[in-house]
């Protein structure tokens, strides 16, 4: 029954799209069919693949950096309380700030290259990854720590056997949210920076009025992001099998 409803909604969406393409909202709306054709053409020409590779490079660099820096930082913040309390203020500001506002500054500082887009991806995702790692450590049940201490656990054992496993769910959630933010940063950066990746393909298609190509690339980008997030969610489920 649920499956039927879900299929129905997808069908309804496609029909709506087809209708929207025929109604003159503006010249510009390509139909689902045209979009599909454009997508196939893009894949055949290799343009989509090379743009994807370029984008993924920035993403991996930026997000990878966010994880490598953010998770340990968050853990330290959680364990060393004074550091946590101070650093948290900066992170709260970074999270509240519309990060896109920093993009022109980054571009000025680093130039128009992959380093810039990687830095932007980093800035978009690192604060969330860090805050979640911090939260994970802070929310460790004191009763569990007490219990381990009653069994005369050493400090190292406390960290590796109580704190880290307890914090893992929140760290993973932070990674998931950080990845979705990383994609957001990547796309905004590339739409503005233009010479790179999927963002460039989108902007270029638009300026050449090749709207079917633009739609196809946008769709592809959304699917790519969705696939990456689903993969991460699967990994998380496997790592956290003990959760009810």
């Amino acid at each position, binding site marked *: *029954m*649920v499956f039927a*409803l*879900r299929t*129905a*909604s*997808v069908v309804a*969406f496609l029909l709506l799209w087809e209708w929207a393409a025929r109604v003159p*909202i*503006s010249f*510009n*709306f390509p139909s689902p069919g045209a979009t599909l054709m454009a997508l196939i053409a893009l894949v055949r020409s290799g343009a989509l693949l090379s743009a994807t590779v370029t984008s993924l490079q920035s993403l991996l660099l930026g997000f990878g950096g966010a994880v490598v820096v953010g998770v340990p930082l968050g853990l330290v913040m959680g364990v060393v309380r*004074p550091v946590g*309390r*101070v650093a*948290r*203020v*900066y992170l*709260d*500001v970074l999270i*509240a*700030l*519309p*990060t*896109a*506002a920093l*993009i*022109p*500054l980054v*571009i*000025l*500082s680093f130039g128009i290259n992959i380093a810039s887009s990687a830095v932007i991806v980093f800035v978009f995702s690192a604060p*969330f990854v860090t*805050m*979640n790692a911090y*939260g994970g450590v802070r929310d460790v049940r004191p009763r569990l720590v007490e219990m381990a201490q009653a069994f005369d656990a050493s400090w190292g054992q406390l960290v590796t056997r109580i704190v880290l496993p307890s914090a893992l769910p*929140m760290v993973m*959630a*932070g990674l998931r*949210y950080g990845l*979705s933010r990383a*994609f*957001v940063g*990547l*796309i*905004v950066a590339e*739409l*503005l920076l233009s010479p790179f990746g999927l963002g460039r393909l*989108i*902007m270029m298609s*638009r300026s050449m009025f090749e*709207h079917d190509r*633009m*739609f196809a690339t*946008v769709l592809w*980008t*959304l699917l790519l*992001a*969705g696939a990456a*997030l689903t993969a991460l969610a699967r990994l998380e489920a496997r790592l956290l099998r003990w959760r009810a």
Partner: protein
Amino acid sequence: MKPPPAGESDFGRAGLAAVVGLLVAWEALGRLNVSMFVPPVSHVAVAWWQLLANGTLVRAASSSLASLVKGFVPAAVLGVAVGLAMGRFATVRHLLNGWVNALMSAPLSALVPVLIAIFGIRDTVVAATVFMFSFFVIVVNTMTGVRGTERSLVEMARVFGAGEAALFGRIYLPAALPAMMLGLRLGVVQAVKGMVVGEMLISLVGLGERLIYYGNTFLITELYAVIVSVLLIALITSQLAQVADRALIRWK
């Protein structure tokens, strides 16, 4: 997928120390001329004041805020309505859940060029972007709130003779209110981000346009001044949302 808990900024001494420390370090780094891209905070303050005085900031900010309201209000009204419907009626939920969840974590900025294709390069695109960014968060949180209503409250109300309307108005709606307010608070934060992204991509009006302009023309102190202004707007709107939340939910 929910973002990490929006912690109450327990500002306090740590907060004050952090901010003061930052300002001092910023000023020092600026004066030491570490990079042409890090001006001293005092220069930024001066530039900010000048922009305010000559009306640039006011003009840009009003355009931005107008788009924010034009996009957020419909997102809030529609978002709550859809969220309530999805929470209450399983059919609606199964129809829309896939879309809502997918779009909530998607890089919606990828859709802005699509909006430009539809509306052209106009400020309506900004309002549409604001709507897009905030709508899904509001729907998901409202829906979660309704679904989280304790069954025993529903049973209790039915025992005392509540019909559908009474159940909805006196049980489901009040029970969902905290989650709804959370959704609206998160929605406001997302709306401000959407506002900036939209304005930067169409580069026509508002604070986003100023960011692009000063970036392109290498006017660094002005650029920082606008960034600070954007941050101020983000903080103020988020605080207002928190005040509204506390005012409406006194019973916790």
